[in-house]
């Protein structure tokens, strides 16, 4: 009996993880084809090297979330199973002016006792409203999810100390990748609480996160077709699904028993769907999930990590760009002798600054450093890069209700029951989210293959 033919559109983490899980979970491994429009796999997981020196830095996804403290963490398990070295990332400070504010004592000294008390109150409020278990299981919390229109801003507005409010806003701005008014209370709170180790910790893969992509791809039996943009998806008369891809100046059609759309919202929007029903369903799907959030990344190579001894965390927050995250990229690889700093700019600032020239962005990033870093940064700077991720993630606006899991992953269940969607935007815009999404679809497809063994193609 011929195996199922499965087409996966998108060679990012979602597509690759779905392919891996299908190959592992299906009783009879299906025949999988992965279509990737670009010349590389990995999507938003992208590690690059500078031209001046071959020093690695993260262009895309900066870190993985470690939930192992609460419960199983399948993504971390996968990273470990693949034998990839893990580097824990730690940091808790925000630079106010030229001063590192790393703990409550610093807050008290810098912002005053009232601000410190307000920060403690906010932290307790956050923990009371969303426990680590609720955070992990993404369980609904009615009083937190709130009515339509209740954004994270409403929570921040209740903080009595303006200094504390500003401190928190700056602290989580780059993680939110949007403004508090544009995201839900829950999502905002999650991004604040994730700094508490009881909720999660951060880690990366020493030597570059993209190693995960390479490790997964090298273990796949699937056919991978790079530089093969998919033009349209639709069903044919017997219920099979057809994928049209660009082939030279024309198009080529491939038939599949099932198709997985593992694409972010923007590429999904550009895809053509056959049949009115599918078109309508996909428009609805895209409209429901289209809440773009934005990133801008600035990475600068220095001839040495001159900040060591003054600042030894893996990251801290800066006040510039309404709050951005400063990574010590060179802390990700203990063997690295040179220094790399990375600025993660999110939200409206990212959109605003993405219009500006690279040099302007770089200069502003350097200006955002405290005085004790700014001067040596100019002296030791070797090379700088800017990467723009506009609309790359989902902001999860306030009052927005996620669809049931089945509907999230099967946009049109009537005539296109074997057309699935996978993506980080279906969960929380993280790598862990895309892993959950891929696992859900792979389980579903595996059970379908058990019910109806053999391909109809």
């Amino acid at each position, binding site marked *: 009996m011929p195996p199922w033919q499965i087409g996966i559109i998108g060679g990012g983490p979602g597509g690759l993880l779905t392919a891996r899980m299908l190959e592992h979970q299906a009783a009879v491994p299906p025949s999988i084809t992965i279509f990737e429009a670009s010349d590389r796999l990995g999507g938003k997981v992208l590690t690059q090297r500078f031209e001046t020196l071959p020093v690695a830095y993260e262009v895309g996804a900066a870190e993985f979330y470690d939930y192992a403290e609460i419960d199983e963490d399948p993504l971390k398990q996968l990273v470990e199973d693949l034998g990839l070295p893990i580097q824990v990332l730690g940091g808790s400070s925000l630079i106010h002016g030229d001063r590192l504010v790393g*703990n409550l*004592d610093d807050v008290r000294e810098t912002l005053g006792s009232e601000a410190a008390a307000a920060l403690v109150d906010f932290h307790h409020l956050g923990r009371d409203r969303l426990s680590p278990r609720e955070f992990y299981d993404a369980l609904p919390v009615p009083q937190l999810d709130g009515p339509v229109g209740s954004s994270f801003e409403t929570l921040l507005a209740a903080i009595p100390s303006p200094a504390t409010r500003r401190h928190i806003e700056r602290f989580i701005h780059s993680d939110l990748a949007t403004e508090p008014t544009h995201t839900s209370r829950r999502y905002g709170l999650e991004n604040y609480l994730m700094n508490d*180790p*009881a909720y999660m910790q951060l880690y990366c893969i020493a030597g570059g996160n993209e190693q995960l992509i390479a490790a997964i791809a090298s273990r796949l039996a699937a056919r991978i077709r790079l530089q093969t943009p998919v033009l349209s998806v639709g069903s044919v008369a017997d219920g099979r699904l057809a994928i049209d891809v660009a082939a030279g100046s024309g198009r080529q059609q491939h038939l599949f028993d099932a198709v997985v759309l593992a694409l972010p919202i923007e590429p999904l929007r550009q895809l053509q769907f056959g049949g009115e029903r599918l078109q309508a369903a996909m428009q609805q799907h895209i409209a429901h999930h289209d809440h773009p959030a934005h990133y801008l990344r600035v990475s600068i190579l220095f001839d040495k990590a001159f900040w060591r*001894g003054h600042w*030894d965390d893996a990251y801290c927050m800066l006040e510039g760009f309404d709050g951005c995250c400063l990574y010590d990229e060179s802390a990700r690889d203990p063997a690295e002798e040179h220094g790399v700093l990375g600025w993660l700019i999110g939200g409206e600032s990212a959109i605003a600054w993405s219009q500006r020239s690279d040099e302007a962005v770089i200069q502003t990033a350097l200006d955002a450093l405290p005085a004790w870093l700014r001067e040596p940064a100019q002296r030791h700077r070797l090379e700088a890069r800017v990467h723009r991720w506009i609309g790359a993630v989902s902001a999860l606006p306030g009052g927005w209700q996620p669809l049931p899991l089945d509907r999230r992953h099967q946009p049109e269940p009537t005539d296109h029951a074997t057309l699935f969607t996978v993506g980080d935007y279906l969960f929380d815009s993280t790598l862990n989210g895309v892993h959950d999404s891929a696992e859900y679809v792979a389980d579903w497809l595996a059970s379908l293959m058990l019910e109806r063994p053999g391909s109809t193609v």
Partner: protein
Amino acid sequence: MTADSSPDSTPAPGIPAGVPATSRVEMLPTAAGSSHALLLVPRTGDESPDAAEVLHRWVAETPVSRPRHRIELPILLRLYNVDLVWSPSRSAAFASEERCASIREALTDFTNLEAELTAIEDGITAAWPAYEADLPYAYGFSDASFSVRDTLLARYGTVKSLQGRLARLTKQITQPAPQPPTLAGQIGERLRERLRVEERDEAADGELEVLSDHYDACGQRASDFMIARRENMLSWTIIVLLATETLLFAIDLLSNAGT
């Protein structure tokens, strides 16, 4: 972990030259038999650039090392607005006056915790040769092993005591740091990380489990042996008495037959 609430009677060392006059040395409340001096140097803003080096030298005057874990001492910790040098018997902090209470609290807790962990590790190290010698008793017990029962009991007690101490210590080691992070919590966390306290705790726990399993097995064997021995003794006593009785009858019969 226990710490004397009263200050240690060990005289406090002098303040080194090169630090501001407002500096002071305090003796931290530590467990009986040990002492820890803390040099607190208030940050004034006009301190000399080598002030941290002076603190390091002062702490390094007491040569205490942790060679078993290949940890270089003293440990230099640069936290947010606090410079800290720590060794098991001395530490020094360079911080604003407002931070001193937090620093003292964190260092007292950590120093006592680390000292207790080291004492437990020393106890474990001392227990290994006896463990090797006692291995046969975990498999079987005999009359020849009878005399070692008290020794085994004492070793069992030592191991269980170490295990109890470690269990109480583990509770402190694994308890999460307060959130939002405080300076005291961060000092404790960083020092625990630098002194590899969690790994050492796990290693000690693993070693104690081996020792404990071994002496549990010895205890079981000894207990089984004692029960069997008591039954055996009773059986043999009866057999010997019966045999004697039979022999007496036989001799009586032979004696009568002779006459």
